[in-house]
């Protein structure tokens, strides 16, 4: 029986070795590339033609499902195992080897909580309450001086840090939107009570300079800490969610970020020097998307001074012809975490292209009145009119091949996800593989239902996702490509704080 699934499987498994990387001279780069492809190859099997005992093994591992005595050849997302793994920080103490994460506790919380949220499996209210109070214990003011503001640090007793603050605010936003009213209002109250402190602290992290007669401004990660484009993103994401973004914070930031675009087209961490990189490209684009949303005079990334064609070209070449996942830089190896860093960039690129073409076609400006959440709501609604053929998703990458990489190569059969088959699972890779999977299923996909409206926690928000194989149980909740929490959570938090006065 030749089903549609068989078609996809044969297209993606048999004969794809012709898309393996090619080289004429062998160097360190080509050697490790070749061994990575070889490491992935055993996972790209043609399931329908497997012998029964191999199929039974895969059923036992949970990778295949048995229905009415018949084995379905569709690879499963190991939901329950991932849920169990992501619950580890809430069930037992972490071993001493986690000591380096002692300064990243809000990160552990965000990575695991967002993973659970995408899987529709947030912890019980009691655990969520513990999370809120643990995050509260991470909050610190500068030199105990309230005027200078404060933020969330890595754990109790540490100075505030932009990255851990971003993680903490995202985690609290997730909890704020959950269905348990008690812990939800705890989270909201905590966020509300810190708005002014955060704002003042962010002002103190500004690193202004005048260049070619223009004001440019980067942000420090913490006092007397490094300046790079991660900080700008972390600051703006938090400010946008909590409605504390204003002209004083935005001044010079766009000019600084735009200078980080390199000759390759992607963005590096610092102006005019560093190499184009998936992580920094994500941060730069997301920061600019937030600025575009805030400033009424800008409609798209190109208005900021970004060379969007070069950016687009750099992004599309990050997808590996054979593995299907993304690399973070040219001539580097595939890594599951870039499923989101580059996958999110592809998603924002789609949003941006869509937005700018809409503006071009509607010079009456009717769209400028749309609430400034990067037009996300409209994007989902309008997805069918995307510039690109929607049959396989509206993003400028092969969404199915990306999903195949996540499902086949990045899943650990014991739960959790990883960089590549030879690497161990961890919370970070679990979060970003799942986030990438979600973005590639939903962004610019056709018409998810009720995105901005309240949707019960138990119900999946989408029934028309773009998928590698048609398996409704593999569908995750849609993540917002700018903030990387569920679209629904982001819109809820934004609308809550929009009702409050701007500082």
């Amino acid at each position, binding site marked *: 029986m030749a089903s549609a699934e068989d078609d996809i499987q044969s297209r993606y498994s048999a004969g794809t070795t012709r898309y393996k990387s090619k080289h004429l001279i062998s160097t360190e780069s080509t050697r490790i590339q070749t061994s990575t492809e070889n490491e992935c190859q055993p996972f790209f099997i043609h399931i329908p033609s497997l012998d029964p005992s191999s199929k039974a093994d895969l059923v036992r591992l949970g990778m295949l499902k048995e229905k009415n005595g018949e084995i379905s050849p569709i690879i499963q997302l190991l939901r329950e195992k991932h849920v169990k793994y992501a619950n580890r920080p809430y069930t037992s103490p972490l071993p001493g080897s986690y000591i380096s994460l002692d300064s990243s506790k809000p990160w552990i919380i965000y990575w695991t909580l967002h993973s659970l949220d995408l899987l529709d499996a947030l912890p019980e209210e009691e655990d969520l309450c513990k999370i809120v109070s643990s995050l509260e214990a991470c909050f610190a003011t500068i030199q105990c001086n309230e005027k200078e503001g404060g933020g969330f640090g890595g754990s109790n007793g540490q100075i505030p840090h932009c990255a851990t603050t971003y993680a903490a605010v995202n985690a609290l936003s997730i909890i704020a939107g959950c269905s348990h009213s008690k812990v939800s209002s705890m989270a909201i109250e905590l966020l509300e009570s810190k708005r002014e402190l955060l704002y003042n602290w962010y002002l103190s992290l500004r690193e202004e300079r005048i260049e070619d007669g223009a004001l440019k401004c980067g942000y420090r990660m913490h006092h007397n800490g490094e300046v790079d484009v991660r900080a700008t993103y972390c600051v703006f994401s938090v400010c946008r969610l909590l409605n504390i973004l204003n002209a004083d914070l935005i001044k010079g930031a766009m000019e600084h970020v735009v200078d980080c675009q390199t000759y390759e087209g992607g963005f590096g961490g610092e102006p005019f020097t560093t190499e184009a990189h998936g992580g920094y490209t994500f941060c730069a684009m997301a920061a600019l998307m937030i600025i575009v949303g805030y400033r009424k005079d800008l409609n798209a990334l190109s208005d900021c001074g970004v060379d969007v064609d070069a950016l687009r070209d750099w992004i599309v070449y990050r997808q590996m012809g054979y593995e299907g996942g993304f690399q973070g830089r040219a001539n580097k190896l595939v890594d599951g975490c870039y499923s989101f860093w580059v996958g999110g960039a592809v998603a924002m690129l789609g949003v941006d292209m869509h937005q700018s073409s809409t503006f071009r076609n509607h010079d009456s400006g009717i769209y400028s009145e749309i609430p400034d959440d990067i037009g996300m709501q409209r994007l989902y609604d309008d997805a069918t009119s995307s510039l690109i053929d929607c049959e396989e998703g509206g993003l*400028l*990458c092969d969404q199915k091949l990306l999903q195949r990489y996540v499902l086949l190569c990045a899943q650990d059969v014991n739960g959790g996800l990883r960089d590549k088959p030879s690497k161990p699972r961890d919370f970070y890779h679990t979060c970003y593989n799942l986030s990438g999977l979600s973005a590639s299923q939903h962004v610019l996909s056709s018409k998810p239902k009720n995105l901005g409206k309240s949707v019960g926690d138990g119900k999946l928000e989408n029934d028309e996702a773009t998928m590698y194989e048609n398996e409704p149980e593999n569908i995750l909740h849609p993540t917002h490509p700018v903030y990387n929490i569920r679209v629904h959570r982001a819109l809820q938090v934004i609308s809550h704080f929009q009702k409050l006065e701007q500082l």
Partner: protein
Amino acid sequence: MLLTEIFNDITPIPQDDGPNPICQIDYPQEFDMAQSYLRAILQKKEYSERALQLTAYCLQFNPANYTTWWYRRQCLSALSEGHSENEYDHTRVVKDLMLCSKLGGGNPKNYQIWFHRRNLLEYTCKNYENGNGYLIQEELEYIAEVLNQDAKNYHAWSHRQWVISTTNSETIYKNELQFIDKLLQKDVRNNSAWNQRWFVTHCASKSPLAMETAQQELEYTLTKLKLDAYNESPWRYLLAIIKEQYRLNKNMEFVNQVLEWIQEVKVHFETETKRDWMTCIHLVAVYIDVLELKGDAESMDLALEYAGKLETVYDPIRKKYWKLRSSQLRG
């Protein structure tokens, strides 16, 4: 000496994770105790030699603790005689660079350690002409050693770029080109080295290259492309140099010359390998881009034909991208 003796006047403050702790880590006992003393003297704002020692001890356990580094710098600053920002005593700079190298060995991708080096050297870099210039040379050698272990370490490269651009010495910029060439001889796919080449030829600015330098760079890139035309890095470099010059003067003669060069690479590739040049997708892609710059009807038709082949046969993973490019080429 024991911690309890060195700090016999201090009451340690234990970690307080609130009444309902989660994400607890089973700390080694020595670390837990040292960290408790650190919390206590940090709260007292004690800037002393023993505080410096304690931070070094704690950092061995967790070099990612940015608060400990931050406090260490405050101590360095308070104990140094310099008046400018980040001007620490020379002996302290040397000692801390050693500490960083020691901690960095097993943590080559730790943000904090690299930033500490930057902070230590900021004053020296900014006063290169009349200061301890040898430190800068030593620093570049240290980074070269790290890159010898991992030629694409992003932190090491960022640090190197910072040292060179902050010092802003013509000789250092010049010598860097040889360093890059050595790395590219070793691995022509080292994209970080290609990026460094752009950084050095442009001296960390966005001013376009002079025509003469651009020609030299194109010739250099062509020799690397003839080694291996499948390599993406030189193609991106080439295309960026071309576009930069084109934006500057819209010089058609230049575009025609570039097209000839690309043809040359194509022919070279075909004779050397006896393979279909269309399998070399970066070659085809750059060819399409330059044909588009030329812009006459004939070139556009050719570009369209190639884009179609990439879409359907040679680069199907980017099929949607090629479809979009084709529609743009059609105008």
